[in-house]
C-alpha cells in the first residue's frame, strides 16, 4: 500500500528572499532523489516554506524500492579460459562481483561473447531507504550563502553546511517516523549542542500560542494534521495564503485611514514581506506632517527599502503622513507596536531631513571638487574625470548626433553635474537614490527642467520593454538632454571599462556592462518615441567618439560589435520579435559586413517590423527560399568584378537584370524614407523573374566571361536584399 511522505526541516529564520528558490528546490530535489532511489512518487510533490521551515509532502509513494536488475559485463570469453580452466581475469571479475565463478553467465555482444553477471538487488522497504533521501536532500539544497553550524552527516563527507542551523526534523512515512540523525562536531557536542533526531514533531509560532507557553512541540501523523495543527498554532504554511492575507489587511487598514495602498507597484515587496512572517498582521503608524515636505522619493525609499513598510496615498495620489507595517503577529493593541515603529520612522526621516537641509547648502557645482575622492575605476580615475568626459560626450551627442545644437549647452551642463550627488549625505545614506537626488537638488537650485530631469533620469532605462521608464511624459522638455546624458554616461562606462580590461564572462558582470549596453541600445531603438528625433543612429560613431574622449582614438574597436550585437538581439527578442526575424535583420557583426555595427538599432527595429508584416505573403515566402539559392551560388564569385551587362544574353537573365534596374531606385528611395515595407514589397516582386532565371539559365556556364557576369548578377541581387535582411533566415523550417 502506498503511503504519504512528509518532511519538515525546522530552521532558524531563513532570509525571505531565499524562500521562493528553496520552495522549488525542496520539490525538485525530493522528486529527483526519490526517482534515483527507485521509489516512484504516486502523487504530486508539494513544497512549502516559511522563515522557520522547509516542507515537502507527497500524498503517496511506493512502499518499496523497485528491484534492480542489471547485467555487468566482464572479460571476453576468449580471455576467460585457459586449458579449460578459468583465467585470473575471469576469477577476478567474479570476486569483484562477490560471487563464485559458476554464478556468472555469458552474454552475446556484437564484439563477441563475454562473461557477465546478472546483478539482482531486491528493493529495500521505503522506511529503510528514505534516510538516504534525507542525506541527499540536505546535501543538495543550495543557498546563496551557507554557514558552518558544527553539524555532520555519517555519509563520509563529514561537515554539513546549511543556510541556517537546523533545529528539528519532522520525517514521516505513512505516519511513522523515519529514523535520521544529524550529528554534531566533536568539538562542539555537549549539553548545549546536541544531535538533531527525526521525530513526529513540529513547532508553531515563536511567540503565539492558544494556551500555555509558545514554542512547545506539537505531535503530528499526517500532512492534513500537520497543516491543521500549524494553523491552530499561528503558522500559515502557504506563501500565497500569507500574501493574500497581507493584501487584504493592507487594503482594510488603508481604507480606515481614508487612503489607498498601491499594491501593484509594490508587488515585489508584497512577495518579500509574505516570506518574512509566519502569521501576518498589519499595523498602521503615522509620522509628523512636516516630513511631507521632503521629496516623496526620500519618504518612500525610507519606508520601502529600509523598513519594508508600505506608504499610503490619498485619492489624488499624494503621500499621506502614515505607513502600514506588516508584522508577524495579530496584536491585541496595535498602538503598542505602532508607537515604536513610529519612533523608528521619525528617526530615519529626521536624519533624511537633516541631509536634505545640509546637502542643499552646497551647490552641485561646488561638489565637483569632492568628486576627485570618489573612485570610478582605478585605471579610469575618479568620478570627477568621468564627469568631464561625459560633459564633452553629451554636448557632442546633442549637437552632432541628434542635430540639436540648441540643446547642447543644457545636455553638457546636466552631464557635468550628473555625478555630483555622489558626494551628498543623502546618497551616502540612500545609495538607491543616486541620480534621482542629483535631479531633485538640481531642481531645488533652480536648474531648468532640461537639466534637472536629465540628471534625475540618467540611469534609466533599465528594463528592455518599450514602456519601461522613462516615458516621454516624464521627460517633458528634457527628452533630448536626457537622451544625450544617459547615452554619454552608459557609453563612457561601457567603453572605459572594456578598454580597461573588465570583460564580461558568463554570469560575471560586476560593472553591469550588459545593462549599460542594453540601456544605450534602448535609447537609440526608441529615439523617436522618447525624444521626437527620427534619426536612425548607429553605435559605431558613438563608440569611436567615446574612445576619442578617453584619448584613445585609433584604438581598435573589434571587441564591441559582437557584444553589442548580442545585446541588441536580446532586447529585440525580449520585446517579442520572433528570433528568426531578429536574426535576419541583426546579422552577427562579422568583419566583412559589420552590418549592425554601422547601422542603427532603430533601423533594425523598423526593418524587423516590416519583415514581420511581409513574411506571410506567398511571394515573400517563395522569395526567401530562392534567396538561399542566390546566396549559395553567389559565393562562387571568387573575385569582385564590374557587372558585364553586355555578356548577359538569355531572355530570362535580361528580364531579371531589367527588373532589378527598375526596382533598385524605388527600393533605395523607400529605404531613405525608412519605408521598409515598401522596400520589401518591391523586393518581393522580384520573385517571378528570379524564379524564371533559375529555371531557364545555367549559371555555371563553360564560358568564363559569361559565368562571371551571371555570378555577378547573383551577387548584386544578394547585396541588394542583404542590405535589409538575410531573408533566408525566415524560410519556414518545414521546407
Amino acid at each position, binding site marked *: 500500500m502506498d503511503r504519504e511522505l512528509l518532511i519538515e526541516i525546522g530552521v532558524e*529564520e531563513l532570509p525571505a528572499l531565499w524562500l521562493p528558490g528553496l520552495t522549488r528546490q525542496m520539490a525538485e530535489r525530493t522528486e529527483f532523489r526519490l526517482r534515483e532511489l527507485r521509489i516512484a512518487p504516486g502523487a504530486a510533490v508539494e513544497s512549502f516554506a516559511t*522563515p522557520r521551515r522547509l516542507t515537502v509532502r507527497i500524498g503517496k509513494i511506493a512502499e518499496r524500492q523497485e528491484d534492480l536488475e542489471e547485467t555487468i559485463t566482464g572479460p571476453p570469453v576468449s580471455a576467460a579460459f585457459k586449458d579449460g580452466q578459468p583465467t585470473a581475469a575471469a576469477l577476478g571479475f567474479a570476486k569483484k562481483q562477490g560471487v563464485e565463478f559458476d554464478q556468472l553467465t555469458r552474454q552475446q555482444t556484437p564484439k563477441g561473447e563475454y562473461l557477465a553477471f546478472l546483478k539482482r538487488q531486491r528493493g529495500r522497504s521505503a522506511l529503510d531507504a528514505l534516510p538516504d533521501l534525507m542525506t541527499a536532500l540536505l546535501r543538495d539544497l543550495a543557498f546563496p550563502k551557507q554557514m558552518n553550524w558544527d553539524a555532520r552527516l555519517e555519509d563520509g563527507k563529514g561537515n554539513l553546511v546549511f543556510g541556517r*542551523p537546523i533545529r528539528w526534523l519532522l520525517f514521516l512515512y505513512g505516519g511513522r517516523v523515519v529514523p535520521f540523525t544529524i550529528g554534531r562536531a566533536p568539538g562542539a557536542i555537549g549539553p548545549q*549542542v546536541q544531535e538533531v533526531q527525526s521525530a513526529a514533531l513540529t513547532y508553531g509560532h515563536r511567540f503565539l500560542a492558544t494556551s500555555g507557553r509558545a514554542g512547545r512541540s506539537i505531535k503530528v501523523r499526517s500532512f492534513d494534521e500537520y497543516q491543521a495543527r500549524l494553523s491552530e498554532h499561528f503558522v500559515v504554511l502557504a506563501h500565497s495564503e500569507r500574501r493574500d492575507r497581507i493584501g487584504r489587511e493592507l487594503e482594510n487598514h488603508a481604507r480606515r485611514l481614508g487612503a489607498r495602498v498601491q499594491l501593484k507597484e509594490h508587488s515585489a515587496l508584497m512577495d518579500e514581506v509574505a516570506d518574512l512572517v509566519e502569521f501576518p498582521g498589519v499595523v498602521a503608524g503615522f509620522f509628523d506632517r512636516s516630513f511631507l515636505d521632503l521629496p516623496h522619493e526620500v519618504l518612500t525609499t525610507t519606508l520601502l527599502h529600509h*523598513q519594508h513598510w508600505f506608504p499610503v496615498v490619498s485619492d489624488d495620489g499624494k503621500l499621506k503622513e502614515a505607513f502600514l507595517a506588516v508584522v508577524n503577529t495579530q496584536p491585541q493593541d496595535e498602538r503598542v507596536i505602532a508607537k515604536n515603529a513610529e519612533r523608528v520612522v521619525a528617526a530615519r526621516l529626521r536624519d533624511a531631513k537633516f541631509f536634505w537641509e545640509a546637502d542643499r547648502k552646497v551647490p552641485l557645482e561646488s561638489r565637483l571638487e569632492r568628486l576627485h575622492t570618489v573612485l570610478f575605476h582605478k585605471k579610469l580615475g575618479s568620478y570627477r574625470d568621468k564627469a568631464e568626459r561625459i560633459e564633452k560626450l553629451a554636448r557632442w551627442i546633442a549637437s552632432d548626433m541628434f542635430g540639436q545644437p540648441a540643446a547642447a549647452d543644457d545636455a553638457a551642463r546636466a552631464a557635468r553635474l550628473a555625478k555630483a550627488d555622489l558626494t551628498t549625505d543623502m546618497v551616502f545614506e540612500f545609495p538607491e537614490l543616486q541620480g534621482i537626488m542629483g535631479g531633485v537638488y538640481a531642481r531645488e537650485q533652480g536648474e531648468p527642467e532640461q537639466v534637472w530631469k536629465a540628471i534625475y533620469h540618467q540611469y534609466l532605462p533599465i528594463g528592455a520593454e518599450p514602456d519601461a521608464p522613462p516615458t516621454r511624459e516624464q521627460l517633458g522638455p528634457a527628452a533630448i538632454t536626457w537622451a544625450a546624458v544617459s547615452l554619454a554616461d552608459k557609453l563612457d562606462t561601457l567603453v572605459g571599462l572594456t578598454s580597461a580590461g573588465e570583460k564580461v564572462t558568463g554570469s560575471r558582470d560586476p560593472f553591469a556592462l550588459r545593462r549599460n549596453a542594453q540601456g544605450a541600445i534602448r535609447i537609440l531603438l526608441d529615439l523617436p518615441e522618447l525624444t521626437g528625433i527620427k534619426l536612425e543612429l548607429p553605435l559605431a560613431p558613438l563608440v569611436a567618439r567615446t574612445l576619442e574622449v578617453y584619448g584613445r582614438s585609433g584604438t581598435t574597436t573589434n571587441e564591441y560589435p559582437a557584444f553589442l550585437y548580442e545585446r541588441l538581439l536580446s532586447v529585440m527578442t525580449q520585446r517579442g520579435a520572433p528570433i528568426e526575424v531578429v536574426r535576419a535583420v541583426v546579422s552577427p557583426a562579422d568583419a566583412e559586413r559589420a552590418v549592425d555595427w554601422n547601422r542603427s538599432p532603430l533601423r533594425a527595429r523598423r526593418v524587423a517590423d516590416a519583415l514581420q508584416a511581409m513574411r506571410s505573403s506567398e511571394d515573400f515566402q517563395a522569395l526567401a527560399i530562392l534567396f538561399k539559392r542566390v546566396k549559395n551560388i553567389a559565393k562562387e564569385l571568387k573575385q569582385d568584378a564590374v557587372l558585364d551587362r553586355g555578356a548577359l544574353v538569355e531572355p530570362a537573365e535580361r528580364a531579371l537584370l531589367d527588373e532589378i534596374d527598375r526596382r533598385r531606385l524605388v527600393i533605395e528611395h523607400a529605404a531613405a524614407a525608412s519605408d521598409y515595407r515598401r522596400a520589401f514589397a518591391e523586393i518581393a516582386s522580384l520573385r517571378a523573374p528570379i524564379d524564371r532565371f533559375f529555371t531557364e539559365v545555367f549559371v555555371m556556364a563553360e564560358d568564363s566571361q559569361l559565368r562571371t557576369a551571371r555570378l555577378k548578377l547573383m551577387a548584386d541581387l544578394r547585396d541588394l536584399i542583404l542590405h535589409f535582411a538575410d531573408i533566408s533566415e525566415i524560410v519556414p523550417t518545414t521546407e
Partner: protein
Amino acid sequence: MVTLQQLVFKLSEFWASRGCLLQQPLDIEMGAGTMHPETFLRVLGPDQWNVAYVQPARRPADGRFGENPNRLFKHQQFQVLLKPAPDEAQQLYLQSLEACGIDPRAHDIRFEEDNWESPTLGAWGIGWQVLFDGQEITQFTYFQQAGGLDLSPVSVELTYGIERLAMALQDVADVYDLEWGAGVKYRDVRHRDEVEQSKYAFGQIAMPAAGLHALHRNLFDEYYRLSETLVASDLVLPALDYCLKCSHMFNLLDASGGIGVSERMAYILRVRRLAVAIAKHWVGVEPDAPAAAPNDNG
C-alpha cells in the same frame, strides 16, 4: 521604568545565571565590542568560553555634536559570547529580553537577515539583526571566521545596543532623554562628551585639517610598528591593544576626510594584516604558513 543602568544589571544578571563570566570593558578605544579580546581572541581555537560585558563603542563618523536623537560618537554595547553556540541560543536571547521586562507577545520581534563582516578584523559571520517593532536592538551572529581563520566550534555573539533597547523600554524618542539612573538623564552624563568628541572627530580644533591628518597618520604608523613588534615578540594581547589603536586612528582619519578612496583600502588591509597575525599567534599557527582550514566546509 527600567533605567539604563538597571538594564545593564538585568542583562548581566541574566547571562551570569546562564553560565557567563562577567568581564569588564577593554580600556582602549574600539568601534565594536567584537574587537575586545574576550570576543576576538576567544572565538579562536577549540576552548569553550561564555562571557558577557559592556563595551563602549566609538564611531567617530557617527558623531553628531549631541544634536541627533539617535546617533552617537560613542554608544554602549552589551556583548555576549557563547562558545560553542548553544542550540537554544535564540530562546536564551528571547528570555533575556523577557528578563528586561519585554513581553514578546505584545510586540513584533523578528530575526531579519543581516550578516556581519569586519574587513579590518578578517572576520565575518552569519546572522540577523533583531528587530523590535522595526527597531534594530541586537546583532545576532554565528561567527564563521576571525583573523582570517575558519572557526570550529562556532560561537554565537549577541550585541545589544543598550541605548536603543533602553529607548524602547522607556518609550523615549531622544537618546538624551533616557533615564540613566534614578533622576539622572543620559544628557547629564554624556552630552558634553558627544559635543566635544564630535568636534574633535570632524577636525573643529585649533589646528589646520592637514595638521590633524598628519598627526593621525603618524600615530597610526607608530602604533602599527609597535603592534608589529609586539606580534613578533609573541605578545598577543599587547599587540591587539595597538592594533585597536590603529583601527581607531583609521576611523578618525576616515571621519575627518583625511584619506582618499584607494588609500582607504590600503589602511584597511594594513589593520587586517595585524589582526590576522595576532589571531594566528593566539592559536599557535605559524603566521607565514598558508591559512590552514580546520574544517572542511570549503
